[in-house]
């Protein structure tokens, strides 16, 4: 059962959905983070190079102003000590003062395209441009820095997502799954008719779970009350039926039900005694009223026909022959009961004839 709970229960589904959702969010977020981290890392690299140039700006102006190749070389070598810088070219009024590259090999044209060029201004005349410096960054170094940045940020994001997912799972477990499991277990064992009711889990008296338990208990109360009422009604009905059976069975008059074709569907012991036939529950075959030994066989048929046609009760005295060949008179009263059934009452009126 525990295995089934883990496989089919809310806990596993919740965890799976949470993890899936976080994976989805994680993939989207990591993709976005990679994109933004790359842009940011590139901007940072460019900013670092700009800062490098700012640092040597003053010396660069002096070197450019006096066309000092040695000083320009010192500046270039200083810049090349930074691993991001691949090549430095300093020129004064179009004349190259120095051109230094890491490893002595000038980079390809494609790499040169990413160079940063900045004007060199005169140290003494504002706005006068006396030369330029071209600084080519090393794309491999920048790429490595970008990758490191992306990996760091991705790991940071993954950890954050994992932590949040873990907290959500624990929260679900503590505040939802555990109480519901407890309620489910109690509900499984609960015998409502015996008065068992669910307990509200601790700390949930005002939560949705508390309201659910309260509603279940109210429902159980209503159900038990309805069952009790139905039971009482059934007992009363059985008692009433017994009374009616007693009246039917103990009546002095013959009482019976006949169908449109004259077949007697049911009769009481009094009619059995009058006609000299077996009781209804002992009779074999069919009892047809028209087939009885009437002195006027058509009269009973006409009486039945009349009641069905008029829909009103009718009576007639009819003479019937007993098995011992003697005759007696019956007063037959027929009343319609529904469309195809008549209720009949028979009295022995021989004494009045």
């Amino acid at each position, binding site marked *: 059962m525990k295995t089934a709970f883990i496989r089919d229960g809310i806990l596993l589904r919740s965890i799976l959905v949470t993890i899936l959702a976080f994976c989805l969010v994680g993939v989207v977020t990591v993709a976005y983070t990679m994109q933004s981290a790359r842009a940011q890392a590139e901007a940072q690299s460019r900013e670092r190079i700009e800062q490098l140039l700012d640092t040597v700006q003053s010396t660069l102006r002096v070197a450019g102003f006096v066309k*000092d190749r*040695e000083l320009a070389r010192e500046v270039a070598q200083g810049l090349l000590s930074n691993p991001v810088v691949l090549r430095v070219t300093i020129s004064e009024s179009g004349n190259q003062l120095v051109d230094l590259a890491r490893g002595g090999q000038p980079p390809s044209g494609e790499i040169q395209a990413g160079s940063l060029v900045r004007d060199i201004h005169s140290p003494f005349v504002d706005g006068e441009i006396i030369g330029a410096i071209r600084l080519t960054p090393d794309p491999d170094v920048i790429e490595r820095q970008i990758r490191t940045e992306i990996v760091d940020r991705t790991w940071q994001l993954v950890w954050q997502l994992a932590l949040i997912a873990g907290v959500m799972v624990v929260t679900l477990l503590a505040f939802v799954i555990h109480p519901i499991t407890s309620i489910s277990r109690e509900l499984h064992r609960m015998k409502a008719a015996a008065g068992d009711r669910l307990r509200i889990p601790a700390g949930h008296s005002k939560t949705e779970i508390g309201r659910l338990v309260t509603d279940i208990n109210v429902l159980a109360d209503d159900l038990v009350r309805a069952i009790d009422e139905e039971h009482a009604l059934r007992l009363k009905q059985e008692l009433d039926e017994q009374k009616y059976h007693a009246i039917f069975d103990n009546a002095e008059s013959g009482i019976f039900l006949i169908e449109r074709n004259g077949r007697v569907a049911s009769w009481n012991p009094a009619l059995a005694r009058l006609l000299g036939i077996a009781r209804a529950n002992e009779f074999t075959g069919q009892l047809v009223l028209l087939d009885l030994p009437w002195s006027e066989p058509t009269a009973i048929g006409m009486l039945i026909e009349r009641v069905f046609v008029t829909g009103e009760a009718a009576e007639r005295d009819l003479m019937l022959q007993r098995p011992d060949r003697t005759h007696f008179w019956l007063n037959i009263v027929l009343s319609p009961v529904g469309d195809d059934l008549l209720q009949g009452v028979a009295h022995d009126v021989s004494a009045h004839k």
Partner: protein
Amino acid sequence: MLRALLALLILSAHLVVRAEPVVVMRAQTAESLSHEAVTNIFMGRFRALPSGTPAQPIDQPRDTPLRAQFYQRLVNKDQAAVNAYWSRLHFSGKATPPLQATSEDEVIRQVLRQPGGIAYVRRAQVDSRLRIVFELPP
């Protein structure tokens, strides 16, 4: 009283004008220099006059007000900044600072001694042996 004050004001202005630095060369020279050319010569960028004659700039003695005033008006730098500038260039030896004179008279003597000699002196020091080749803007 008013006349006395006015006379004092005129005298003060005259003295100020006579104390301001002007750039001079020997009287025989035909050069006339721009602000940029004087800057380039004194700050070591070029050491030649527009005519092609090698130029030899001569500085006033250290820590004199005239020297400080000259550089402040020429390149808008105080003396410390100018010293720092030359310190940067000192180790490479590519550019050398102007010749350092020991006195104002020595400055004039150096200018007169060599054809490309160029220096800044107080306007009051300018006589027939010297020619003003550039006047600093006010």
